[in-house]
């Protein structure tokens, strides 16, 4: 079949399979239908639930303001799909174009979208991770279990890791009047994502809200009692903290294991794809019929030196899914690149934190508006003399402006006056990111080099 004929056939009666039934999978399915795909559509998801929204799980749900059972994503349109929920994909045969499922079934596709996302990185010592009272928070089931425990008024919650999720959990607990200890191996919360200057503000915010924040420490062991319930956490500084709940918040692991042996360029850092969302195979050759979107994807970005970006961002999942879906059923001349500017938000301790760009690339930072002491400010990050990112605390309405600075590679430090410039904003200072070769749990944007199918990463020794 000539290309045009194939596309016509595909759009009319082809089979599209989407592995991953969360935000990216759903939005891709809706886009396919919106753009006229009339063939068969199958969504495969390892959780038994229809697509739901995750951001509330570490915020409103923990506060009791929303039910974990009712965070379903709003549907934009009918998608007329076959749902295979509660059954994980376990393998991919790219030659036969079939996805293998955990129940032994196989699903054939003409075009495949991989949107399997990430999962919470568990506590590495399995026996300790199994103790009653030790939680992770990523899925709806996690949220149900954790919230039930919070509702039973624990004496203390111990949070391992002060990235965004860990900090939001600590915030929710404090709002409910529960004692919280947070242990973070870096010198401040959010350091991996936003650097030390902003991390210091986040740390003050936590302490002001009564969090027992321990920085520069690692958790060396979790101790259980005779009944198998967690009772204490031991820290690398020799101290220990009695607690009846531990939340492990050490970031995420990409769900790519099921692709082992498939020949795709998939590894612990995600699945490499081109800007059009087509997956690379491990030789670095782009595939024709396999697309990637959402947290599991890593794709090159022209604004950031064409480095491959992995983004654990809600908005990225949506736009990348839309782009992937469009490209799946479009001729090459009609395809679009995914060049979304990373944007991220978090709500914690009464503050709305929002960032655009890739703060982690920043060498320097300048407080361009407002004041850190007031917890209301905008800061711009600079990289090699240009603006690469910005973050706001309770000042999100200015960020569109900074996004344009990033998009136009505007010079850093900004050489113009702004409203609300304070003394602290007269000159840039080092952004104070930790050595990137040291592992952190926190960044939600990861730059992962240039090689599309960087197999070396597979051999990165585990840090535990």
């Amino acid at each position, binding site marked *: 079949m000539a290309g045009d004929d194939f596309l016509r056939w595909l759009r009319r009666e082809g089979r599209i399979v989407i592995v991953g039934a969360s935000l990216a999978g759903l939005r891709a399915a809706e886009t396919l239908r919106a753009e006229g795909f009339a063939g068969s559509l199958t969504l495969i998801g390892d959780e038994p639930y229809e697509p739901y929204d995750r951001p509330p799980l570490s915020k409103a749900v923990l506060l009791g303001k929303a039910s974990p059972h009712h965070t379903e994503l709003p549907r934009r349109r009918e998608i007329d799909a076959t749902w295979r929920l509660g059954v994980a994909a376990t393998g991919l045969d790219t030659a036969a174009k079939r996805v293998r499922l955990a129940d032994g079934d196989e699903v054939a596709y003409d075009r495949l979208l991989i949107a399997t996302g990430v999962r919470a990185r568990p506590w590495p010592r399995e026996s300790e991770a199994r103790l009653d009272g030790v939680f992770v928070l990523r899925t709806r089931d996690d949220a149900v279990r954790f919230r039930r425990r919070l509702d039973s008024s624990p004496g203390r919650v111990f949070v391992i890791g002060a990235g965004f999720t860990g900090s939001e959990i600590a915030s929710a607990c404090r709002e409910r009047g529960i004692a919280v200890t947070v242990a973070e191996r870096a010198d401040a919360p959010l350091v991996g994502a936003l650097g030390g200057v902003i991390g210091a503000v986040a740390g003050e915010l936590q302490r002001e809200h009564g969090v027992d924040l321990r920085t520069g420490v690692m958790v060396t062991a979790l101790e259980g009692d005779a009944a198998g319930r967690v009772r204490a956490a031991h820290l690398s500084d020799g101290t220990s903290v009695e607690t009846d709940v531990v939340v492990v918040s050490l970031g995420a692991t990409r769900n790519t294991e099921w692709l082992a042996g498939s020949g795709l360029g998939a590894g612990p850092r995600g699945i490499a794809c081109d800007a059009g969302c087509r997956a690379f195979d491990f030789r670095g050759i782009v595939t024709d019929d396999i697309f990637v979107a959402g947290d599991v994807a890593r794709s090159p970005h022209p604004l950031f030196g064409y480095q491959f970006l992995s983004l654990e961002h809600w908005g990225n999942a949506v736009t990348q899914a839309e782009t992937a879906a469009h490209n799946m059923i479009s001729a090459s001349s009609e395809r679009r690149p995914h060049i979304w500017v990373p944007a991220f938000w978090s709500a914690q301790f009464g503050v709305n934190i929002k960032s655009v760009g890739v703060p982690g690339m920043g060498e320097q930072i300048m407080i361009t508006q407002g004041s850190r002491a007031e917890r209301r400010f905008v800061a711009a990050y600079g990289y090699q003399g240009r603006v690469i990112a910005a973050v706001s605390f309770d000042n999100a309405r200015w960020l569109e*402006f900074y996004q344009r600075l990033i998009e136009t590679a505007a010079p850093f430090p900004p050489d113009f*006056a702004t409203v609300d410039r304070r003394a602290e904003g007269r000159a840039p200072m080092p952004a104070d990111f930790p050595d990137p070769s040291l592992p952190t749990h926190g960044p939600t944007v990861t730059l992962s080099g240039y090689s599309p199918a960087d197999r070396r990463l597979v051999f990165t020794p585990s840090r535990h």
Partner: protein
Amino acid sequence: MTHASLLQRITDYAHRADPYPLYEELRKTPVLHEEEGGPYLVSSYWDIAGLLHDPRVSSDAANLAAAGADVLGGPDETGLPPSFIRLDPPEHDRLRRIANRPFGPPHSPRLLDSLRDDLAEIVSGLIDGFGDAREVDLVDQFAYPFPVTVICRLLGVPREDEPRFRAWVDPIVANLDPDTEAGEAERRRAAQEARTHLGMYLAGLAEQRQREPRDDMLSALVTSQGPDGPMSVMEVLSTAVLLLIAGHETTVNLITNGMLTLLRHPEVLRRLREDPDLVVRIVEELLRYEPPVQFVPQRTCIADIEVRGVTIPKGSRIWLVLAAGNRDPERFKDPDRFDPDREDIQHLGFGSGIHSCFGAPLARMETQIALTALARRLDNPRLLEDPPPYRRNAVLRGPRHLRVGFDGLRPERA
């Protein structure tokens, strides 16, 4: 000068009924600077949206005066400090946060919803008041009294005092009109005098509320105990002046422009009668198509800003012509068509950025309730005069009267 500048023609009352051809001409020069010392007019959607979020653009009245704003105010001699609409952060943010505590989320998330039934009742009372008439002036008999009643109730201003404060509000609003005709000095003086009187009037009410707080915003402002602390008495007064005026002046126009537009598009009016939910889209499209605030003439650049290759020098005044941006074909397909079915109506009608309309949720709700009720209850409504006579103001643009004929009133519950 042999012919009038575009700016003069836009502010010229002769073009009030239909300024849109002028805006189209304006968009041909997206950054227009016609006269040394005059403002830079920005008229295309993306440029306006960008400048509304640009921290190099100041709303501070002091900067505006320094920029030689001969048209709009200059130093205020009333003794009242500028309200937050004429301030930059951090003062703007602090005052707006305090004002928002009794008005919207997160502290008062249910206020507006709790007003819904009251608003519907006011509307149905006004329509019942048409009685046996077969012709009304929709402005005087409906679009004006409705939001005035609402803002009085919300703020805690006695409704029966309307004739008193009306006499002060009018000159203040007139002074917001950047009419390039002469008489500015006189107009400014009248506005300042009116603002002083209005402030003194509100000071009396504020004092009462301090002694005996009630369930209204004025009481909340004088007793505010949030993390930002209380407003000073003078800040309360200038905030109350702002809320009282902005709380109804623009809504009158939105409702009137709304009914005028619906009567010019009877098919949409018919659909609204049958499908009240359509009103949400209708009001959004109205805010795009006939925005009640046509342009924002109060901003100053505090740094050089390049827009489409034109450098607007530091210290210049800029006018953001929202109504022109709302019909920018670069942004909206078929922009001169009134089409509530548009997929994407991300209009500039309420501005954007930190100064985006404070009362937007209230204005939306008022207009939705008003238009739905008018569509449902007026039998065979029609325009008796098209175009209607307009108010003088080029910024807060809307009909002065809107004569509507109809065959009778349908009962409240059909």
